[in-house]
């Protein structure tokens, strides 16, 4: 019963995203609310394993929303809500969330784990693209202060299933890293000031 209600709600949200996509550059507040329901107020996630959108580079958000809409990046929870959303709406949403200030998240830091993650990040030259403070740029996401569970899951997916449309550059970057090493990295990035 609950599953049915949820499915109905998602379908409704989809119809409404499509209708809203004819709007101009500013995304409608209802549309933004549909995102923040999961991604948190102002795009700062309050839910484990759901990524924060606040302060992510605009182009990164645009590209990921297109990949999810096209079915090239498989995110089950977002598949239906992105179906049929226009490029204009995607650009408006990306512009909005890129401009939101990322809020620091309380994280229990394991100092040894963070130190191992830092050393790996340095050795793997993550900062070349993600920038030395890991705030991201253009198509490259901000890692600093991102949700730890999401970071780990995203890195595992990039390592194990590069998949269609995904960046072959990033897939190769993680090839051969163990789960433990990825967990160190996720812990380190999540604990950085966003």
């Amino acid at each position: 019963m609950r599953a049915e209600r949820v499915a109905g709600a998602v379908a409704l949200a989809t119809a409404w995203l499509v209708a809203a996509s004819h709007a101009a550059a500013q995304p409608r507040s209802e549309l933004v609310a549909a995102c923040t329901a999961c991604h948190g107020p102002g795009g700062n996630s309050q839910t484990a394993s759901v990524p924060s959108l606040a302060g992510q580079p605009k182009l990164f958000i645009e590209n990921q929303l297109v990949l999810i809409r096209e079915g090239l990046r498989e995110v089950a929870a977002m598949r239906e809500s992105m179906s049929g959303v226009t490029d204009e709406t995607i650009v408006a949403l990306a512009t909005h969330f890129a401009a939101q200030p990322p809020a620091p998240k309380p994280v229990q830091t394991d100092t040894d784990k963070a130190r191992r993650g830092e050393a790996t990040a340095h050795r793997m030259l993550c900062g070349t693209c993600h920038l030395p403070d890991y705030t991201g740029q253009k198509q490259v996401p901000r890692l600093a202060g991102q949700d730890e569970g999401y970071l780990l899951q995203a890195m595992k997916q990039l390592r194990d299933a590069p998949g269609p449309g995904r960046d072959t550059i990033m897939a190769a970057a993680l090839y051969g890293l163990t789960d433990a090493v990825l967990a160190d990295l996720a812990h380190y990035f999540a604990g950085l000031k966003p």
Partner: protein
Amino acid sequence: MLARTALAVSLLSLAACQSTGPQTAAPAAPAAAPAAAPPPAWQQGRSPDQANSKLAPHAGRMTATPASEIPIANYKLPPGFKAEVWATGIPGARAMVRGDSGKIYIGTRAIGRVYEVTDTGAQRTSRVVVDKLNQPAGVAMKDGALYVIAIDKALRFDGIEKNPNVAPVDMTAAFKLPKEQHHNWKYIAFGPDGKLYVPFGAPCNICEPPAEYAQIRRYNADGSGMEVIARGVRNTQGFAWHPATKEMWFTDHGRDWMGDDTPEDELNRLTKHGDFYGFPYCHANGVPDKDIKKPNPCDGVTLPVATMGPHAAAMGVHFYTGNMFPAEYRNVMFVARKGSWNRTKKFGFDVVTVRMDADGKNAKIEPFMTGFLDPASDTFSGRPTYFLQLPDGSLLVSDEQLGAIYRITYAR
């Protein structure tokens, strides 16, 4: 009513969100994962003194760019030539082919689509022929069929212009596409011999490539009869056949992380099947590799006809055979240089012409279409990639960055 609906949606979305809970973890990694990871392909060959470099491949754009955001007025051409925005809303537009009835088919990379553009005279309309493919950059036409080659798939759409919804014939098995992805998005074309030419790039920046890579092959149209026709080719993204000599000319991208000015991209001429073009030992016009060494690295290497500039990313090539441009452009080669990333100051981002003697000697490179790059700020707006000559002699140029197609015309 709308507000109530919105609230309900928002609340239920939240419920949906929470009911999802933590996402299930990816499948467990294989037990015996290798201890040390190789660097990603684009970082291979990077020396310790380059560790702090900020140079990285440029971002593509995957949303439609409105015509109003395309800086057509910035583009510069020789006197008498004019560029117009011919089609927009084709994110990632790369190679173009034309069907007999005039429809244009366009390949892409990350967005995974092949587009069809129909010219109604006053305007152009577009639709997606196929999507969700893994970098379907290669498109070709033969006998009314559209051929699409992605990294891991080969499809044929028979009679597509007459039957727009035709189901594709899957020819993947026949082409035996190897599994590595890097540099294995394709430019493809049918040669004057009716064979389909398909490149297999080196799956790295610099490496000893496995046997099935760093080469150009040709196949019968059905994928049978494969032959390797050029070896030691790092990453060709464009080729064409000279209208008079019928020889194949191809571009090849030079490796990265050997400095701002070397090795340059190559423009090669294929005179003998099976020739070796130097990768990974010898680059450009005789530059030994700094990482993969052997004695006399350039011995037995067919050197390029011309070098196309450092990190220029020389893409599509086209020999002009139309009647619209002045006579001095007949059989002249156009080359699109998508532009550099692995260079302190950007280079390329333009279309050049190459004029040479009949034997390929004395190549002279001149700018033809510029204005994509602003040298003062070292920033670019667009990235020209491929050509398609129309029956009236005008020339289409695709812009992968802005998802646009320009039409170049000439009038006295």
